[in-house]
């Protein structure tokens, strides 16, 4: 988006009929007003709430930055932030790697490609709650099908989500299952625009498949991979449905990520002021990380040019 904002300042459709962009803007007005009503005004309200102490049913008091200083020393909150980052790193790296590999595979022509691609993207379309319920049954330590399958290949039963040490990695597994297809689609979209010439000359020069991927394909699709990284990062930071359904943040608080912590504060304990402060911190983290990734993407583009 950022690179598109630049040409907008140049004279638009020169030579053609000149219609003031302002008039076109009227078309966007209803949507913008609606978005302002359901997104921006709640947002400003949250900003105000974040400096208040407000429990549902209790009085509203102005506490200044009190909520934020309280957060800074709330170990449960700080742990959830660390856990969220760890979860995000894993839930970005694995889908990006697998999704890129899948895009390379689905870029080729082979029998039943359309059907197999549809099956491959089904996990990202399936209702997360429905799938999370099935995962819960599959993770069951005694009766779950996964431990049975492990026993078939001679492995000891795994604790999955029932052990604080393995719960995060297990939830990452579910996340990878869900969202690798999205990465595949984004990268596949990038590969559709690949030029053919470099491959022809590389084939003549006797390059191997791996060399062609590493030195031709990868640099060209890197911008798309970065888009996927940004989207994946944002989504992984916000993950809620699967964790909430499978573990509710447990065992103990072992899988309590920022979003789960936020939910519990707001709608379990009804500390709405405190929860609003969490929203602020959460949003700053998301925006900062997205900007950092977009900046890195810009740098990569310059290097490639």
């Amino acid at each position: 988006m950022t690179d598109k904002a630049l040409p907008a300042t140049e004279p638009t459709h020169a030579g053609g009929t000149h219609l003031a962009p302002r008039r076109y803007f009227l078309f966007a007005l209803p949507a913008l007003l609606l978005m302002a009503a359901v997104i921006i005004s709640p947002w400003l309200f949250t900003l105000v709430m974040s400096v208040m102490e407000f429990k549902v049913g209790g009085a509203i008091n102005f506490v200044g930055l009190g909520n934020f200083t309280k957060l800074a020393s709330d170990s449960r909150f700080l742990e959830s932030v660390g856990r969220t980052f760890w979860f995000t790193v894993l839930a970005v790296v694995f889908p990006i790697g697998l999704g890129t590999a899948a895009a390379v595979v689905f870029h080729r022509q082979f029998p039943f490609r359309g059907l197999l691609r549809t099956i491959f993207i089904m996990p990202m379309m399936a209702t997360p709650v429905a799938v999370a319920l099935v995962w819960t049954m599959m993770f069951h330590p005694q009766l779950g099908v996964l431990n049975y399958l492990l026993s078939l290949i001679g492995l000891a039963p795994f604790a999955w989500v029932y052990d604080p040490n393995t719960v995060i990695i297990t939830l990452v597994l579910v996340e990878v299952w869900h969202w690798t297809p999205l990465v595949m689609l984004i990268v596949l979209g990038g590969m559709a625009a690949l030029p053919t010439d470099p491959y022809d000359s590389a084939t003549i020069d006797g390059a191997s498949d791996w060399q062609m991927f590493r030195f031709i394909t990868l640099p060209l699709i890197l911008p798309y991979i970065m888009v996927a990284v940004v989207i994946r990062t944002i989504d992984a930071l916000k993950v809620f449905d699967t964790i909430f359904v499978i573990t509710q943040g447990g065992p103990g608080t072992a899988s309590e990520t920022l979003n789960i912590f936020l939910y519990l504060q707001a709608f379990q304990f009804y500390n709405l002021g405190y929860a609003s402060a969490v929203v602020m911190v959460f949003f700053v983290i998301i925006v900062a990380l997205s900007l950092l990734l977009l900046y890195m993407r810009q740098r990569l583009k310059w290097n490639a040019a």
Partner: protein
Amino acid sequence: MSNRIKSGGIWRNIGFGLSVFALVSPAILVFLWMISLSLKNELDNTAYPPVFIPNPPTFANYIEVFEKNNFLLYFWNSLLVTGGAVLIGLLVGVPAGYGIARSKAYRTAVMILIARMTPALSYLIPLFLLFQIVGLIGSIWALLITHLVITVPIIVWVMIGYFEGIPQELEDAAYVDGATLWQSFRYIALPLARPGMMVGAILAFIFSWNNFVFSVVLGGKNSRTLPSAVYNSLTFEQISWGPLAAAALLVTLPVILMTIAAQREIVAGLSAGGLKD
């Protein structure tokens, strides 16, 4: 680039086939297991070693879902909320995509992107209070309005991409003939953008249908959408595995069928139009 598998290397073909198999098998396994659980009686579902193929398959679980729960009510709720949010999303989102694409107001588009970045729970605190004050908590309307947060950005985003692909020259010719801005939109751009509207509507429908957290917070006993209704029946009634798997399958079936029917549009929307670089 050689898009086709080179003839000859049979081992390469086998290796390629195995990698395709490895890629699709996790999806197949989870869905097959879901179907298997939903068609077995409770004895088979809790057997060890697990029974893989229902023998004989039973529909008792599905019958139980419809008999013991208000499944049809929640299905109707989901349909109202998602259908309404997609319709309103199209109504405001399609013109918005046109306006943004033609005036090249990409900064506005970034605002819409921010809507996608914000965690849904952050709108929910103020909306929860607001709906409580105006007495809409536990009503379908509260959910429908909130679901616009999902549908409008998706539709606007897809439509920007589509309208950009429609050449300005067509409309310029209409202006020369004296058409107004609205006429040019209504009679030239809009008919050409119909495929884009399909893509936007399908994606908006799927993501709205799948949404869980809005209904958990704002839904009342009778206004819940399907995903949170199924989750609640799990926690409050300690329902057994078979009916739960059947319910889960029924919840996700509409979007799965839609994915199969519209896979071309979905792939196009998500890989190009929806996430333009």
